[in-house]
């Protein structure tokens, strides 16, 4: 299985993702520029954290119109896995690949710490290696991670099991403590926490490994 790590102007967690995939998970991965127009050689797409286009206008709003996002959209429509963390999550909501949006943290503070999360749904192709209701620890680092959607969207998210991760404590003001969701088809996942920064106990947590292990196991079956 081969992963594309998309690099936008302002991405700053791209190297972490590449390292997590290649060095820890031992799968193929390479950087793909935001100007790329062809992702056909890849089996999965990863959108890193950072500040694409300086977060001008709104987080992710300008990245959404970069060349590569047309191809990411096509890729997602084919049922292939797309994962966005932090700014990657913001880009996915701006692109309409995931519902809702990310607002400024309720406290107005940039929050940078490791937080406990509940795995709400371990039945997805991104989380099958976890147990449902398992508590894991992943770092967050964001100023605009306050997930917001209207009530109709929230009802749909619940009915379809699209809420995947919840904060134990509502650190940023998100609707129903939502930390990560999937699309209805279950092949696009966005989350504010950073599993790619929780790959070695030396760095505080290994809980991110099972996230990528789930992706590789489940989506690898489909594509290989």
């Amino acid at each position, binding site marked *: 299985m081969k992963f594309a790590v998309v690099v936008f102007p302002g991405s700053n967690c791209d190297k972490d993702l590449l390292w997590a995939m290649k060095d820890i998970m031992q799968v193929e991965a390479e950087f793909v520029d935001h100007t790329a127009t062809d992702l056909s050689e890849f089996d999965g797409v990863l959108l890193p954290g950072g500040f694409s286009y300086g977060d001008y206008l709104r987080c992710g709003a300008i990245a959404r119109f970069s060349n590569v996002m047309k191809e990411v959209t096509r890729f997602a429509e084919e049922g292939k896995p797309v994962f966005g963390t932090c700014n990657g999550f913001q880009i996915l909501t701006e692109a309409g690949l995931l519902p809702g949006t990310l*607002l400024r943290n309720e406290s107005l503070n940039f929050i940078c710490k490791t937080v406990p999360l509940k795995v709400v749904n371990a039945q997805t192709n991104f989380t099958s290696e976890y147990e449902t209701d398992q508590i894991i620890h992943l770092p967050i680092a964001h100023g605009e991670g306050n997930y917001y959607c209207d009530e109709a969207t929230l009802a749909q998210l619940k009915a379809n099991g699209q809420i995947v991760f919840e904060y134990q404590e509502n650190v940023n*003001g998100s609707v129903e403590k939502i930390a990560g969701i999937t699309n209805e088809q279950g092949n696009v996942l966005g989350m504010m926490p950073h599993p790619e920064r929780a790959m070695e106990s030396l760095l505080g947590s290994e809980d991110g490994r099972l996230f990528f292990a789930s992706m590789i196991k489940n989506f690898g079956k489909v594509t290989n």
Partner: protein
Amino acid sequence: MFFVKVYVTYKQSVLDPQGEAVKGAIHQLGYEGVQDVRIGKYFELKVKQTAEPVEEVIETLCDQLLANVNMETYRYEIVEMEEEA
């Protein structure tokens, strides 16, 4: 040529923490009468006349880029101006 002013603000149902922080500062200045503060974005666009009506151009831009209609609303004013040399 048109001069277009676009105002984008959070929907009323969305908490505006920046607005709340500024409201707190206003109250500290002693102006308790200020009940609500909402912070938004303001855009000035100069738009050439094309076959497409300018209102349609602006609405498309607002819906797709300038505002995120999940959380924001927008309004705009269009003023006709003389062609620039």
